[in-house]
């Protein structure tokens, strides 16, 4: 979208300056490290808090490390509060939403980048126009629609509005512009149909972009809040963020240990995905400047 298209790899410093400057820069490392402490600190506090007993939060002076580490908070989450169910709901919704986006978005991305058809420009304009629209706008009409279709408190109700999105179209379209026309023509000359060309020639090249799109879509769905908050009204349909927010603002608002454990359960899958795929995530964001 903008000039942010370079890879994250950095050009080396001029040879003469590198060694000399590295020494003079210790204070930058120090400041950045202090910053990292501020960024990671709350997460450490979250994990430590999740291992404390309820009584330990009342001790004065307060403790930093748990005095008697316990998994009690997690056990209560899973036994008393049905967190396995919320975890399942979040996973199912995020997986189906991700599948929808990596199937349907590149199809339109391809049609916009490489095919000539009437209606292409209006479709492009439509997708562009909705990029800026606040999520709150569609909330009420979608709720009314789902209520009339009988889909409030159902998985389709949670999934359908997110099966496609403009982000995936931009990401894939931009990439597919870069695929040489000759490659596609060659497949056509060999007699492949448009669909065969798409699946057997275009798709295999596009896999890295689909991976980025898939990861970002999964994360966005996993963290989505306002929509499932409205659409999941019965506890058995809660996703993890809805469950955590409901407990944090309701009956369990001062049960700090359990709330920290709930936050850990919500954050850990995302952390694992991020650490495994961080390069794809940050590059995908850098190339498009969009979060999804």
């Amino acid at each position, binding site marked *: 979208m903008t000039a942010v298209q*370079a890879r994250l790899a950095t050009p080396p410093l001029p040879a003469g300056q590198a060694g000399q400057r590295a020494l003079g820069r210790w204070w930058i490392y120090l400041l950045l490290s202090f910053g990292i402490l501020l960024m990671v600190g709350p997460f450490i506090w979250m994990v430590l808090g999740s291992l404390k007993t309820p009584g330990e939060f009342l001790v004065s002076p307060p403790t930093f490390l748990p005095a008697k580490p316990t998994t009690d908070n997690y056990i209560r989450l899973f036994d008393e509060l049905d967190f396995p169910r919320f975890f399942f709901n979040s996973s199912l919704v995020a997986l189906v939403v991700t599948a929808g986006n990596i199937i349907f978005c590149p199809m339109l991305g391809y049609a916009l980048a490489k095919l*000539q058809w009437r209606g292409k420009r209006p479709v492009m304009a*439509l997708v562009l126009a909705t990029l800026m629209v*606040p999520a709150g706008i*569609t909330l009420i009409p979608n709720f009314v*629609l789902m209520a009339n279709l009988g889909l409030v408190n159902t998985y389709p109700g949670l999934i359908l509005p997110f099966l496609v999105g403009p982000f995936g179209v931009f990401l894939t379209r931009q990439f597919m512009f870069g695929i040489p026309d000759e490659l596609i023509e060659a497949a056509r000359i060999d007699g492949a149909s448009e669909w065969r060309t798409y699946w057997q020639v275009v798709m295999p090249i596009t896999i890295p972009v689909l991976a980025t799109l898939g990861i970002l879509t999964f994360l966005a769905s996993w963290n989505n*809040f306002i929509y499932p908050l409205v659409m999941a009204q019965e506890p058995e349909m809660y996703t993890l963020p809805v469950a955590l927010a409901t407990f944090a603002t309701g009956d369990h608002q001062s049960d700090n240990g359990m709330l920290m454990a709930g936050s850990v359960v919500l954050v850990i899958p995302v952390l694992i995905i991020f650490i495994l795929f961080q390069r794809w995530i940050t590059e995908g964001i850098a190339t498009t400047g969009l979060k999804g």
Partner: protein
Amino acid sequence: MTAPALVRSNVAGRAPVGPRRGWRQDLIGWSFAAPFVILFGIFLALPIIAAFALSFTSFGLRDLDNPIGTTVVGVQNYTDLLGDPKFWKSLGNTIYFVVVGVPLTLALGLVVANALSRGITRFRTVFRVGYYLPVITSIVAIAVVWRFLLNPDVGLINILLSNLGITGPNWLASSTLAMPSIIAMAVWRNLGFAMVVFVAGMQAIPAMLYEAASIDGAGRWQAFRYVTLPMLRPTILFMLVITTIGYLQLFEEPFVMTDGGPLDATLSVTMYMYQQGFEFFHQGYASAIAYVLFVIVAIVAFLQFKFLRSEA
């Protein structure tokens, strides 16, 4: 099929000329586009129009079974909004959040990005991952953790302050400190996003510009001021628009941390819309609030692009 296709590719990358596009090509194009366009139309495009229509009705819980039978009230929702002090309060709070939060987020993101790409040579990935970590985690989880961090009695922040001999305030219960606390949390969470985009923008700046500046005797600050900043201008503008649009939609943070309080000091426009729509079931009125926010978002984005671009 192949013949016109070949003709097309021979016109090196230009738009197809010659034979008129046939219905077959339209059919193929639409067969790729249809699943997206249908889902997108039903769940994104139509609701945007429907919300506009709803904002001229008194739609409420009783109309849910028969949406067509709702009462049209014309512009009454909008005129009511003009005289609704709670709406103005929520708008003021949201603007406060944007005006303080956006520049802080972008400035810190820029500082970290510059340190990462021009200041250091090692451990870049470690730093990038660390600063980016909060961006990908759920705002709800972060808000729950921060509420606990800011707890007046058992929160880490006041514990650290008390070690310095300072009695920390009750952050979220103070109508003057609650919004700054939420801003601090938002800046903390989002500066990594700005950082990643700025780092990518900085990689695109040709190294020879820095070499030339260095030959001319420019120091590190001058290189930043006269090379990095001007070259990064489009990226900064883009981030300004994206971040402003995101911040105008403030919702999760006050929902979890303060419930909009104390005394509506952290009530945001989206939160007020949620309350009207799903706590009081005034969905017509809530749609009007949503549309006002939409118009504000559109105007702000338009103005930022128009004025900041031409300034260069």
